[in-house]
């Protein structure tokens, strides 16, 4: 399994049985699922019961679930893959009920009502994957034509995208098309069709594809394979599938940014343990960077 996943599972005190509600904006994407599962497992090692509830990015539902959890007086609520600013109602009901709220990859700014948010450094992901693509395109981005696969409604992906755009702009990359994926649940199919259409419309008109997450990157790679094109694609997440694709060497997906879920969940579990033990937490936001995976280092990450 991935490095980090097994690491640092040491109990951090403040044990005892705890009922914890884990309410997530996303469980349908592989990366999110991996992180959630890891968190539940580590919590169990602490003696905590973590109940997961998925909302498929329905913020209204996140609010409702937080209200329900607050009404049940759970020991803590963890929100995943959402932005605390967008769920004020749920946050308020938790605060009113005296239930602490923790964040797993939840937004990027410190929010008062959140006890601790351990989050991926999405801008770093965007910047890093963009630079990797520039390297794959020959090192000098000037005039290189890149298609971007984005999804603005997802706060994390949006942050990545913005950082990637900045990096491309700085390098003089020509962002020829920025495609918004409409529905992430069928994202791979959409990406496949969109890239196929673009490549048909502009034969030889692309030097690379930047994708906001691995699933759509795989769709882009499939389309390129059908079009017999060998331009590089980069993703973000470091899913097992993405890693396998990079390792194969024959796939167009050449690089992805590995999100360090091991570290993120470790830090969150540790922070929660400290909180339950009555310790004061130094800050309520921690950002965790990831690692770039390319053909060179992929073997360290694959099973």
């Amino acid at each position, binding site marked *: 399994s991935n490095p980090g996943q097994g690491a640092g599972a040491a109990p951090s005190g403040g044990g005892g049985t705890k009922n914890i509600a884990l309410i997530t904006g996303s*469980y349908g994407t592989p990366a999110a699922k991996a992180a959630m599962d890891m968190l539940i497992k580590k919590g169990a090692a602490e003696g905590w019961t973590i*109940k*997961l*509830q*998925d909302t498929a990015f*329905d*913020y*209204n*539902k996140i*609010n*409702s*679930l937080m*209200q*329900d*959890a607050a*009404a*049940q007086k759970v020991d803590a609520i963890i929100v995943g893959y959402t*932005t605390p*600013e*967008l*769920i*004020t*109602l749920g946050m*308020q009901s938790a605060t009113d009920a005296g239930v602490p709220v923790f964040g797993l990859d939840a937004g990027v700014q410190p929010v008062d009502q959140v006890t601790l948010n351990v989050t991926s450094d999405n801008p770093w992901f965007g910047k890093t994957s963009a630079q990797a693509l520039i390297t794959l395109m020959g090192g000098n981005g000037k005039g290189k034509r890149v298609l971007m696969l984005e999804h*603005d*409604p997802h*706060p994390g992906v*949006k942050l990545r995208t913005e950082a990637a755009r900045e990096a491309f702009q700085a390098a003089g990359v020509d962002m020829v098309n920025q495609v*918004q994926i409409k529905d992430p649940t069928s994202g791979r199919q959409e990406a496949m069709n969109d890239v196929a259409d673009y490549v048909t419309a502009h034969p030889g008109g692309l030097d690379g594809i930047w994708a906001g997450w691995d699933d759509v990157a795989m769709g882009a790679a499939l389309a390129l394979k059908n079009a017999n094109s060998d331009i590089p694609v980069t993703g973000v997440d470091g899913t097992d599938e993405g890693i396998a694709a990079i390792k194969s060497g024959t796939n167009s997906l050449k690089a992805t940014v590995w999100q360090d879920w091991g570290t993120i969940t470790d830090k969150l579990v540790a922070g929660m343990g400290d909180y339950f033990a009555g310790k004061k937490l130094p800050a309520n936001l921690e950002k965790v960077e990831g690692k770039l995976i390319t053909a060179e280092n992929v073997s360290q990450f694959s099973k």
Partner: protein
Amino acid sequence: MTMDQRAKTTSAGPAAIVAAPPRAHQLDIGRILRLSGTGIGLILLIAIFGTLRPSVFLTVGNFVNILEQISILAIIAAVQTVVMVVGDLDMSVGSTASLGGALTAVLLMSGWSIPSAVLLALCVGAGIGAMNGALVAYVKLSAFIATLASMTSVTGLAFIVTNGANIFGFTKDFLPLGQGRFLGVPIPVYIASAVSLLIWALLRFTTIGRRWRAVGGNAEVARLSGIRVDRVRFIAFVIAGLGASLAGIMLVSRLASATAQAGDSQMMLSIAAVFLGMTMSSHGGANIGGTIVGVAILGVLTNGLNIVGVNTYVQQLLTGAIIVAAVALSRLGKNRR
């Protein structure tokens, strides 16, 4: 029985008009089961969850929670009821809610006052309804395809309006609409009650309400009896657009943020609620009382399964099964021919 009446008529000359239906139906258990099947379903659900987690589920706080959680759906389902009374269907209520909310958010952020932003968003909602209504009533497209198409277009519009982003950080004054409480009861609950009552009164007491029902019952007879069927259908869609937009605005206030698809999930739920409620009328048509019971079932179901702590996936599996069970219950008394 009919024969008796008729036989009497024969001998008696001009007959006295019987003002109320005879009491023959008094102990028709099949009928009672049929008419209240969905209601029984609701009570059963409450009983089950109440037994499983009495200390949490059966509290005033949780009850208020459920009410708050279903308020927005209740509004959309109420206006969906109107469209379905007429015999049509509005697939665009979800996206209209999204757009209405998104538009309000964008306007607020660009400095509009709350009343003017809300008013414009309501007008846009009514406008979308009017477009749907025109396509269905005057161009005579099937309601399904017309509103499906407008759902797609309106979603596109909502994305354009928000530019795909989450919009948040409104003035605090806007938040009470969706988050405030009065006498311990959330404001949305009041609004939803008011809208439901209004729709109920419209359907029950007004001429337009009766015309909606007539058109839904038999449009051709209605037309030949001097009802302007086109106009009547048109108005139903306008109301749906208006109500959807209102719900969307409340949703944005409740969430303190707006996205292009925030309200989309309400569409299917609203239709499901109306269908659940349709079993509660003797003629099998959409009716506001039934719709509210339908909304309540959906609300109690989610809340209860959450509180009992059922795995999300299993929740979905159960939700479908329970909806079927609730509707099927009402079929029990019905199957003899």
